[in-house]
């Protein structure tokens, strides 16, 4: 028996997720993922290549400053990656070491504790790191290409990364083992989920506060030497991210020998860390696990005042709506891992608004700025759609799954599944539309919309998009419901969550395609007065098609979700 055999049930479970899916859909998704990865890779490569040349800074300073900027961006990416893995590793460690459902069986078996621990460490490392690595890999390879790396660098770099993700995982493992000795595990897991969101939120603000766009604009610089010096300094000295950064820069510049020397501290720390953690676990793991079994669950009814404020107006609604809404709000407020997501969402919304506010529209010749402004207003609706869709994925999409195994209570009640789904749709539609409209108002005021039709159209678009996105979240969330999932975050990151985001994107493309002609006429009319009624007819056809398509996009996922729920047989 070895550690790999002990994690095989988890791999089998993972395989089962895909085994009963339609092969064609899977192939399509796989191709879509490759396409997206290629797009990220190529887009970022072109961007980095441009930043590396920095033509706006002149022929002398451009390449020097550009190279420093690319290097700085890579360091920032490694730092972000490190913190992301660190926090997710503590959460994954608490789950894998103490809350995993196979543990009682394993702990009561005659297997050595070290073997059990190593299998949990492997599970935890995979769980905390795979998604980060998969999503960051195309971006990191784009850096390699932009820095003219040779092919061996692409083969060696994943090993560097492996050492790099090992360290935060080992730190997470130590932290989890130590925490278990003093605190109730379930509570700690929630606290860390909460903290990780706060740190990510902070990181979003930190990265934005660096104002990377200023680095490419010479008018912001008073003292170029000071600026070069600040670029050359590492963000955090003697840290794993700075070691990896130095090693990677050498590797991508094809100084492989130097790169291997630079990665040595990271490799030594990783190997030493594994050895020490094994020793530590051999001594304390069983003891910590026993303590975690004795710890009570969360008894704190935190944010009770907020819950009361939100549910107070619900008393005026019909009883079924009231109790379902009440339960949703209560569950939301009492789960720190869920409500803390709001901070991150607020940060994303803030950064989006801020980014728009600093767009250099004033620098563009006035003849064209009006047109550019209007085009941006038109495209802003779909962008808001993507923000609302990502918020929907975290909060609305998991709402059916989060009924959990208690769903029998609803199914055996006189309330029909249709009413349940309608209640949830309405419940989530209100804040989603509100959010969409607020975003639209703020961004419209930033753009100073010149045409009243555009202003109305932007609100109309946002309302249609949020309506479809909410229906998709409820419908697709019901079709791909996982009533045994513990965390809404896992549900959001599931296969169904991916389908939901994909479909949201398709609707937005559908909306844009149908509005292209009316928009073209709107711009065209400014220069030439159009005669005849053919244009009006085509605009009317576009509008009718748009409304019809929207109705279908709202109805179909909802209907499909309803069928699934009606036929669902709870455990």
């Amino acid at each position: 028996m070895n550690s790999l055999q002990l994690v095989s049930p988890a791999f089998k479970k993972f395989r089962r997720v895909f085994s009963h899916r339609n092969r064609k859909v899977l192939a399509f998704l796989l191709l879509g993922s490759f396409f997206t990865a290629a797009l990220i890779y190529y887009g970022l490569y072109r961007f980095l290549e441009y930043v590396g040349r920095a033509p706006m800074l002149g022929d002398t300073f451009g390449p020097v400053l550009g190279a420093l900027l690319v290097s700085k961006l890579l360091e920032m990416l490694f730092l972000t990656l490190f913190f992301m893995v660190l926090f997710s590793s503590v959460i994954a460690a608490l789950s894998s070491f103490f809350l995993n459902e196979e543990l009682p069986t394993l702990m009561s078996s005659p297997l050595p504790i070290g073997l059990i621990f190593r299998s949990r460490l492997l599970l935890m490392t995979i769980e905390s790191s795979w998604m980060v690595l998969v999503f960051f890999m195309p971006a990191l390879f784009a850096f390699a290409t932009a820095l003219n790396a040779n092919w061996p660098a692409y083969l060696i770099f994943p090993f560097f990364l492996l050492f790099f993700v090992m360290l935060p995982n080992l730190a997470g493992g130590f932290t989890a083992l130590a925490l278990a000795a003093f605190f109730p595990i379930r509570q700690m897991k929630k606290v860390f989920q909460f903290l990780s969101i706060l740190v990510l939120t902070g990181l979003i603000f930190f990265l934005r506060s660096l104002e990377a766009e200023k680095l490419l604009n010479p008018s912001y610089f008073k003292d170029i030497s000071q600026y070069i010096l600040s670029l050359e300094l590492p963000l955090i000295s003697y840290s794993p991210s700075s070691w990896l950064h130095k090693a990677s820069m050498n590797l991508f510049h094809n100084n492989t020998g130097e790169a291997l020397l630079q990665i040595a501290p990271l490799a030594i720390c990783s190997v030493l860390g594994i050895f020490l953690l094994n020793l530590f676990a051999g001594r304390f793991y069983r003891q910590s696990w026993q303590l975690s079994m004795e710890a009570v669950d969360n008894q704190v009814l935190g944010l009770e005042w907020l819950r009361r404020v939100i549910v107070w107006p619900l008393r005026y609604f019909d009883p079924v709506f009231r109790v379902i809404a009440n339960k949703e709000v209560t569950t939301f407020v009492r789960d720190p891992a869920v409500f803390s997501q709001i901070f991150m969402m607020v940060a994303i919304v803030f950064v989006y608004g801020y980014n728009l506010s600093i767009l250099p529209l004033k620098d563009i010749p006035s003849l064209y700025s009006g047109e550019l402004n209007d085009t941006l207003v038109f495209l802003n609706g779909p962008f808001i759609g993507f923000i609302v869709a990502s918020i929907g994925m975290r909060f609305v999409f998991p709402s059916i799954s989060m009924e959990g195994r208690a769903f029998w209570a609803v199914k055996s009640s006189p309330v029909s599944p249709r009413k349940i789904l309608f209640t949830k749709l309405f419940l989530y539609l209100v804040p989603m539309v509100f959010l969409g409209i607020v975003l639209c108002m703020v961004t419209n005021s930033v753009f100073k919309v010149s045409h009243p039709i555009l202003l109305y159209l932007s609100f109309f678009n946002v309302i249609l998009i949020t309506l479809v996105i909410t229906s998709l979240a409820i419908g697709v969330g019901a079709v791909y419901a996982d009533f045994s999932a513990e965390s809404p975050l896992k549900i959001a990151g599931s296969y169904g969550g991916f389908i939901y985001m994909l479909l949201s994107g398709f609707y937005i493309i559908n909306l844009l395609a149908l509005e292209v002609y009316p928009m073209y006429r709107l711009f065209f009319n400014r220069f030439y007065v159009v005669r005849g009624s053919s244009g009006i007819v085509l605009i009317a056809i576009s509008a009718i098609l748009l409304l019809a398509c929207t109705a279908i996009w709202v109805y179909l996922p909802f209907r499909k979700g309803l069928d699934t729920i009606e036929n669902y047989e709870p455990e």
Partner: protein
Amino acid sequence: MNQSEPIIRFCGIEKRYGAFTALKSVNLEIFKGELFGFLGPNGAGKTTLIRILTGIIQPSGGQIFIGPYDLFSQPDKAKAMLGYVPDRPYLYEKLTPLEYFEFMGGLYNVALERILSKGEEMLRMFDLWDRRNELIESFSHGMKQKVAMCAAILHDPEIFVVDEPTVGLDPRSVKLAKNFFKQLVANGKTVFLTTHTLSVAQDLCHRLAIIRQGDIVALGTMNELQKRASMSDSNLEDVFLKITEEELEQQTNIL
């Protein structure tokens, strides 16, 4: 007990899962005011029938009438007559017992005052009143079972459907639960329960049915079952084993 008035009628209920048949045309009548026990070995189809009765799963064929209502064409009216306690008490873990009652009561359109007063009465009866402000996630299996039992009674159902009511309960709670069922029946309600604890079934039930491999193989009072097994002085455990083994032998002979 009013033998002339069936309050639940199973008419040819079938349930198939692919090639496997879980229920083979079950026909059964339960009368108003009856405490009916539904017995059978593991995997015989007891829980499947209960889940069909409570509208959680759909049968492959057949009809169920609850009072005057067809469960499948008038589910809202039929389900409003039922109170259900499942074998595994999965509840909304982030709610307190009183909040859970409010949720369940709301689904059955029960007035808030009734929910609170009945909820308090039931929690006190099951010794859970002191823990009313704690989250259900911290409760043991038995405590959750009691909360589920309390919630099932809030809307004053005519029929109480209980799947394995004594699993996870301590002896005092088992006694409380048994008295509770007797009290319900004394008040004219009907109780339909499944259990593996045959002594509980023998103590409580007016009539019993034994299901085996999706077929009802015996139905009647304790005396009638004893006669059927030709074991007039034996307890339910012996009778149950005799009947289920006989059935198995018969099937083996046929094969």
